[in-house]
């Protein structure tokens, strides 16, 4: 394999890994606060259509990404109000958000069907971004660098900041966090909004970077892969980064295996498609066997908080 070909494969992996990395990072923060939002797919679709619409309207992809983040956060607030203020069931509300997001994005996107926007693919000058070898470092959309930055930032936030500590405390034991005097609901609102914004940006990757078109159901179920990824990473940001690239490699090798033939094409394509989910199951089992506190699910995950005192 030539270096250029390896570069090409790495670039392809980065491209497919970034949206699930972004959405996964957002969901990781949400779950660390003790909330399970299954509406990632719906928020991604809302972000995808909003990012595209904003870019098509204002002509600036940075505004497009910001609009996608705002739209994702706004959608997540429906979920937040129902599950946090009204203590509704999180599983059902998340599913409702996915259904709603699919319908809403399809309707809102009607005027933008069949249009394109300039692809938001490059940050660095051509000499670096299009260099046959160095493009492996410099050849990506600004959103890709943003995802890496956010990974570091979230890891730092959770581990090193007081706010991060509070967030984790709220997710691990909401009653005592409440007793100490933290606003459990307030913290969770912020986490949910952050998760929505990240899912919105992840969605905009599809409509602005990967294929700068809008189509109904554009994200084609990747939101669920992002949910699997969070578990696969056992709620740790850097594992999530690694996991996103592993999942991305699986998805990329699937198409490359078809293009290249050879040993990879011996596996049925369905096996490749199922691999992320099976791997996640395996990780869940491994986590529980090791029973290490640092890498297990937040104790309050999915449980509504109603103060006992």
């Amino acid at each position, binding site marked *: 394999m030539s270096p250029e070909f390896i570069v090409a494969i790495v670039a392809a992996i980065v491209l497919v890994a970034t949206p699930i990395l972004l959405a996964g990072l957002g969901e990781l923060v949400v779950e660390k606060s003790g909330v399970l939002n299954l509406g990632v797919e719906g928020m991604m679709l809302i972000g995808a259509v909003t990012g595209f619409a904003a870019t098509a309207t204002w002509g600036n992809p940075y505004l497009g990404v910001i609009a996608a983040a705002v739209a994702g956060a706004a959608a997540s607030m429906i979920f937040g109000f129902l599950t946090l203020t009204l203590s509704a069931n999180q599983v059902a509300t998340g599913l409702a958000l996915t259904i709603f997001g699919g319908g809403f994005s399809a309707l809102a996107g009607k005027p933008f069907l*069949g249009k394109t926007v300039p692809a938001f693919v490059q940050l660095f000058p051509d000499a670096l971004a299009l260099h046959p070898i160095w493009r492996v470092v410099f050849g990506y959309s600004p959103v890709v660098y943003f995802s890496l930055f956010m990974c570091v930032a979230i890891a730092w936030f959770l581990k090193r900041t007081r706010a991060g500590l509070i967030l984790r405390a709220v997710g691990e034991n909401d009653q005592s966090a409440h007793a100490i005097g933290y606003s459990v609901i307030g913290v969770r609102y912020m986490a949910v909004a952050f998760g929505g914004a990240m899912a919105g940006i992840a969605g905009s990757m599809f409509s602005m970077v990967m*294929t700068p078109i809008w189509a109904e159901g554009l994200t084609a179920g990747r939101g669920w892969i992002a949910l699997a990824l969070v578990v696969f990473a056992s709620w740790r940001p850097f594992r999530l980064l690694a996991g996103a690239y592993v999942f991305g490699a699986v998805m990329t090798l699937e*198409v490359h295996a078809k293009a290249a033939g050879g040993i990879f094409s011996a596996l049925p394509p369905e096996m490749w498609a199922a691999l992320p989910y099976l791997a996640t199951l395996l990780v869940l089992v491994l986590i529980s066997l090791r029973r290490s506190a640092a890498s297990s699910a937040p104790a309050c995950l999915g449980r509504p908080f109603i103060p006992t005192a």
Partner: protein
Amino acid sequence: MTMPTRRTILKGGVALAAMPALSGLAFGQEKLKVGFAYLAVPGDYGWTYAHDVGANDLAAALGDKVEVTKVENVGEAGPNVERVLRELAQQGNKLIFATTFGHMEAAVKVSAEFPDVIFEHCTGFMTGPNLGTYNARFYEGRAVLGTIAGHMSKKGVAGYIASFPIPEVVMGMNAFLIAARQVNPNFVLKAAYISTWFDPAKEAAQAQAFIDQGVDFLTQHTDSPAPVELCERLGIPCFGQASDMAAFGPEQCLTSIVDNWGPHYIKTAEAVLAGTWTPQQPWDGLKDGGLIMTPYNKNVPADVAAAADVVKNGQIDGSYHVFTGPLELTNPADASLNISIADGVVPDDGVLLGMQAYAAGVEVIA
């Protein structure tokens, strides 16, 4: 024209027998209500879009005489399809088009329940007294694309993003490769099945993989314009599928095969209005306008355009058929599907519609 049936045993009865003129129809008095069941949404810019254009052509051409109703996202198979076809019939539509292969069983079943409603099913093979089918010879367009690629590809390797290994798709690959080899005998077509008709991100990823593997031409048998858009950015020549995709690739989309259902829809509605409709199985090609090629892009050199026109016009006047023998098609997994066509023989339509074997030079992966 009646096509040979594709199955020896047909369910639902293939009674092409004469049937008294369908008495329930109003002869020119009332509006003819025409219903369409769509696989997906017109926004796919592919298969459903093309049917929607056809439906709009019908509404525009016959004006007051027809009233067109469309149902989107009916899906590929199952009870949903039946329910939508029945709903359209109950709403008073007297002519109903079921626009994808997966609607076949439902169309057979519902058409039997509504004998005074005329059904037509796209790309299927089962018919009935009030059920016809229609299809277009897309392979003719593929032969034109293959000719262009054969002339213009420097490496002689093209990528073909395919959906499922069905005859329709296999036929397209073979036509492309055979035409390309008539220009460049060493031409190779790499084909990959991605098990979906519409997933823009996956289609683009497969396109990227082909390009990374070194193909310098790309063509697709999936519906979204994502591969064309990617090719435009990367400077890889490509072709549009189902609708004119030039807007997504002004430089690189050399021409598009446009599914042109409008003429058939208009002709059928007129026949129903006149009371002359009978169940038929038309398979229209370039000659009858079942498909049309968009004008060649400015990047197609004049001599290549001329060569492509020879193939195109040859198929219109009947002097050229891409599957003319000698031809050996093989299926690596099942030799019973192999097809051998003798020198100078043009295979009949039944052979084409059952094609599940590949021409030498088509490299299929997965």
